[in-house]
């Protein structure tokens, strides 16, 4: 099982996540798609760590997980705040900052 398989799989997962961000309009699902992309990055990091026999890539993956958790917490806080203010939960209708 060469490492290339894992890297290609991570590319596929990243592309699916990017497609999801482009196609979906609910902020909750867009956050989920961001998770997909971050996890694809994690898979690539762990695969490279295996390829080089060096565990530092795994530490990097762990830190990426921490950053992803922060992003989730802030994103979900924003969604709850939007819901409380009766704003539409649709990224195309939230165009108050559009130039």
């Amino acid at each position, binding site marked *: 099982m060469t490492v290339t398989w894992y890297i290609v799989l991570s590319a596929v997962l990243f592309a699916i996540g990017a497609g999801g961000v*482009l196609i979906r309009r609910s902020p909750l699902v867009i956050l989920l798609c961001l998770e997909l992309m971050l996890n694809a990055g994690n898979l690539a990091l762990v695969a490279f760590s295996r390829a080089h026999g060096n565990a530092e890539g795994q*530490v990097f993956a762990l830190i990426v997980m921490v950053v992803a958790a922060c992003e989730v917490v*802030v994103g979900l806080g924003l969604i709850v705040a939007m819901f409380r203010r009766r704003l539409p939960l649709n990224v195309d209708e939230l165009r108050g900052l559009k130039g």
Partner: protein
Amino acid sequence: MIYVAFFAGAIGAVGGAVAVIAMRNPFYSVLALVIHLVSLAGLFLLLYAQFIAAAQIVVYAGAVMVLYVFVAAYVGGQEEPLWEPIPGQRLLAPLLAAALLVELAIAIIGTGLSALDSDGPTLPGGFGTPDQIGNLLLERFLIVFESASMLLLVAAVGAVTLAARSRSRADDDRTEEPA
């Protein structure tokens, strides 16, 4: 045997990822993401990253997904409207994603990294165990570790500030009026 495990994990991961963007109800999307994360944890085990796999299941598939489920339940299972604000979005978005995939594939296949075409070096015992990761985190990457804890604190405070009900009723009334 390892091929069977890899393809089982890969099918689970890709299937879960597709289901996340295909489900119209956000609640089912969250459940599909749990399948994706568990399959990915299996792949991490194949790559000798035991600690990352365990953290993935406990932190991600456990804690973070519960947070998602709570918010999905709080906001309500709102299905997306079918109208398209941007003409052709449904057609263009998959095309752009496919273009990204082709680009990444060309980059991977065209790379000269010889390590990618091997199974990787024989690993010493204890590779990727909590023992080794903990040693790295607390010695070589101590500053990274501490800044991660600061980041988590800031994110927690920020989320509470964002989502908390405002103190004064007047503020709420003003924001609830249609703009």
